[in-house]
């Protein structure tokens, strides 16, 4: 998962006139202002309640965890579980979603099953995963995969169905091989909805790993946050929440930016 903090709508140097550029810059400034406002609200709330640690204390506590290196084990466990789980979900979900979307019959058979499975809170299967994989990253990754696979199937299916009917005809008239048809015609045409699947899949994998870590884990940021709370070390807990929110925001913004750009092209 990409977690770098590249701004999503960095002004494009090549395209568009200066007007759009300055608007984008203005938007990003406003977004930064929103973030600052959120921190200020947080600071205000922390001064009113003992249950909320102040922003500075939280960031300091988090910094201390990074300085003594005790956080890396947990950060690794969480990110690994999200990455492995998401990759498994993508490997299964994209081909399956493609097959369901391409065939009317498979669609009629599996659409209700996929939709029904999507509606089930998949966390309830976590105990079984724990018994199969043992307490550890394996169970968390399996949880993430199980949670992310259905949204990926749903958006891939939707993407295939939205393909312009002319494109398959074009492929046939150029007598492309099936592989060429998929890679040169379908995947580029579906790119925006594939990105939606990737983004939602990442989000759901991420949340489910944290839920699973709350339930049972050996290492992980969710576990660390819960432990910090148990020891009434509120600054550390809020520090970890900030870290997780930053990961969610950065990962999501990066994916969303790619999605936006693909959507504009299409």
């Amino acid at each position, binding site marked *: 998962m990409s977690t770098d903090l590249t701004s999503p709508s960095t002004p494009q140097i090549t395209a568009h006139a200066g007007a759009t550029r300055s608007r984008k810059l203005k938007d990003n400034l406003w977004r930064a202002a929103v973030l600052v406002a959120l921190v200020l609200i947080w600071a205000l709330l922390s001064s009113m309640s003992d249950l909320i640690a102040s922003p500075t204390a939280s960031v300091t506590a988090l910094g201390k965890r990074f300085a003594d290196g005790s956080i890396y084990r947990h950060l690794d466990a969480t990110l690994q579980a999200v990455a492995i789980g998401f990759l498994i979900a993508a490997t299964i979900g994209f081909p399956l979603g493609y097959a369901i979307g391409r065939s009317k019959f498979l669609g*009629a058979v599996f659409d209700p*099953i996929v939709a029904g499975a999507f509606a*089930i*809170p998949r966390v309830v299967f976590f105990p079984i995963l724990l018994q199969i994989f043992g307490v550890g990253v394996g169970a968390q990754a399996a949880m993430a995969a199980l949670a992310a696979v259905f949204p990926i199937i749903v958006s891939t299916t939707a993407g295939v169905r939205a393909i312009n009917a002319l494109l398959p005809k074009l492929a046939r008239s150029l007598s492309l091989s099936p592989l060429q048809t998929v890679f040169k015609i379908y995947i580029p045409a579906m790119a925006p909805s594939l990105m939606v699947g990737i983004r939602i899949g990442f989000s759901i994998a991420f*949340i489910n790993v944290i839920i699973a870590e709350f*339930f049972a884990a050996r290492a992980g940021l969710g576990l660390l946050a819960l432990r910090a709370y148990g020891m009434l070390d509120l600054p550390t807990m809020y520090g970890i929440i900030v870290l997780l929110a930053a990961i969610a925001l950065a990962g999501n913004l990066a994916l969303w930016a790619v999605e936006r750009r693909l959507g504009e092209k299409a």
Partner: protein
Amino acid sequence: MTVAEKTRRVRSTQRNPPLPRATAVRWVILAGLIIALELTTRTGLINPTLVVPPSEILARLVSIIPTEQFGLDAARTLTTIVIAFGIGLVLGVPLGVFLWRIPAAGRILEPFIVTGYAMPTLLFYPVLLAAMGLNAGPIILIAASMSLIPIALTTMVALNAIKPILHKLANSVSASPAQYYLKVLFPAATPLIFPGVKLGFIYAVIGTVAMEFILAAQGIGFRAGLYYRELNTSDMWAYIAVVIILSVLVNSGLTWLEKRIRRDML
């Protein structure tokens, strides 16, 4: 593909309700899965401490459902879901309207709201427990925050997608603001908002059951987690079955409603 072509031919000769064969195949697949599960657990291919035979789950369900405890759990879970969804709807729709009314706000805030999908709000659960106590309050707040996001986003997208001619029409008949919202915008946007409302409800279900599962004093999700910790596999599976049935029922009901609403549009 060949299967699909065949069914297309079958369908064109029958012209019966949509793909009856697909429905039959779907039920055969589901029944086959249940029978396979029964056989593998009965013969010991799958460890019975892991998965309980479906027939035994059914037997446990029959003895659990009439109990008073089940009634209380189900009532707690259902009211939590409905209240959380209600809050999500009451806050999400106006938020969506606001983001549409003030396009700059929509543009600036959209990335933050999109990130809401990946925001692990459940991290605040321990703090909310400390502040509000071990009752439905914290779960309602978290499930409502999960339910609000898709509702707000689709409301904004739906209102943006309304044909400009409708705004002109409202103007030319000099509709009052109330008429403009209730008689023009609301009917025009409802078919497009509904998928988001449906997703919001599903998220409310998922959030409620997942939080109950982690820590609660009552509720269907709580019971499934409790029986896992007590190593009571058959009762755990019975409650997992309840969760599955509840989600599938909710999903089918919403899909039915969606079909009706969307038919009105066409």
